[in-house]
Structure formats: C-alpha cells, structure tokens
C-alpha cells in the first residue's frame, strides 16, 4: 500500500509525475505517427527530457541524490543522438 502524500512537495510531485507521463504518451504518439524521420527524432529528444524530469522528481520525493545519477548521461545521450541523426539525414538527402 502506497502511503498518501503529505505536504506540498509530495502532492506537487504526484501531479507533476502525472503531467510528465501524459506528455510521454503524447510524444510516443508522435513517434508512432510522425510523417518524417525528423518528427520522430524531435519526439524522441523530448522523451529523453521527460525521462530526466522523472529522475529529478524521484530525487525530490526520496531526497536521494542517487536518483540524479542518470540525468547527466541521459542529457548527453539525447543531445548526441539528435545531432548524429541530423547529420545522417542531411547526408542521405544530398546523396539521394
């Protein structure tokens, strides 16, 4: 049984988690439907940001710095993946 949240931080974290998960669902919809690869890359980038946000929420709730460990690598990975995808798309367009 999950204990009911007490205090403003716990309530805010709960609401924020619902928002982030809803946003993730919307992004998954865009990855699924996205007419072009660029749309999918943008949506995946945002999903990475939302995941970092969820890690931060957990760190706030548990007051635990260990939950923050994945945040920086995820941010780096999202950035590098987006740039690499962009370069790949551009090369493919020119070599068409």
């Amino acid at each position, binding site marked *: 049984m999950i204990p009911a949240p007490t*205090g*403003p*931080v716990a*309530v*805010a*974290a709960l*609401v*924020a*988690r619902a*928002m*982030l998960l*809803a*946003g*993730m669902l*919307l*992004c998954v*919809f*865009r990855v699924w439907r996205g007419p*072009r*690869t*660029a*749309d999918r*890359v*943008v*949506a995946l*980038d*945002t999903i990475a*940001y*939302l995941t*970092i*946000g969820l890690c*931060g*929420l957990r*760190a*706030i709730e548990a*007051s635990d*710095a260990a939950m*923050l460990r994945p*945040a*920086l690598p995820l*941010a*780096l990975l*999202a*950035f590098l993946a*987006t*740039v690499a*995808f*962009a*370069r790949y*798309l*551009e090369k*493919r*367009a*020119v*070599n*068409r």
Partner: protein
Amino acid sequence: MMGWVIAALVLAGASLMLVASIGIVRLPDTITRLHAATKAGAVGLSLLMVAVSVELSGSAALEALLVSAFVLLTAPVAAHTIARAAYFVGVQLWEGTIRDDLWESGDIERTFQMEEHAFEEEERREQDRERKLDAEREAHTE
C-alpha cells in the same frame, strides 16, 4: 516555506514540459513542432532541475544545476541541426508559412548544386553499371 518553493518550481517545470508535448502533437509541421519541443521542453526541464537543487544540498545540488545548464546550452544546438536537416531533406512547410528567409537569401543554391553533383555522380555510376552489364552479355553470347 522551502517546500512551497520546491512545489511551485516542480509544477511550473512539469506543466511547461506538458505544454511542449502537446505542441509536438498539435502543431502543423516539423519546424513548428521543433520550436515547441526545444524551448518549452528545455526550460521546463531546467526549472525541474532547479527544484532538485533546492531540495538536495552539496554536490548533488551542483549536479542538478549542471544538468540544467547543460540542457539550456545544448537544446538550441540540437534544434538548429535537426531543423537544418529537416529543411534540406525537404520537409513540407505549413501552408500558413509567410516567410522563408533561407530560400529568399539564395544560400539554398549551394545546396542544390551539391545535390546536382550527387545526381550526376549517380548517373555516371548507372552508366558504368550498364556498360558492365552489356560487356557481360556479350561475353555470354560468345
């Protein structure tokens, strides 16, 4: 007191990220979707990370601030590269677009020259292939 500050920051950040996701689904073309995702998303995430740094102390707070700074620095770069790629791939712009400065400035011609060059190279490759096929066919008939 600190609790209310953290709660406000968390709610502001999460709602900005939700707005970014809604923009990704609702906006009409790739460039505008990118516009929603990169600004609202990056600022929302950095607000959340500021909330984390208020809650935690010491090196963990510094790490959270580092994540926030990193996201604020890299999101524009990533958005620029992906927008450039999307434009050159030939993503359809929204029919309500009123201005295309890159097209009007003439820089686009260089890209088209690059594409033309690639096209010529492909044609040459195809001719080579046909010549090779012809040679094979002749060898076969002999």
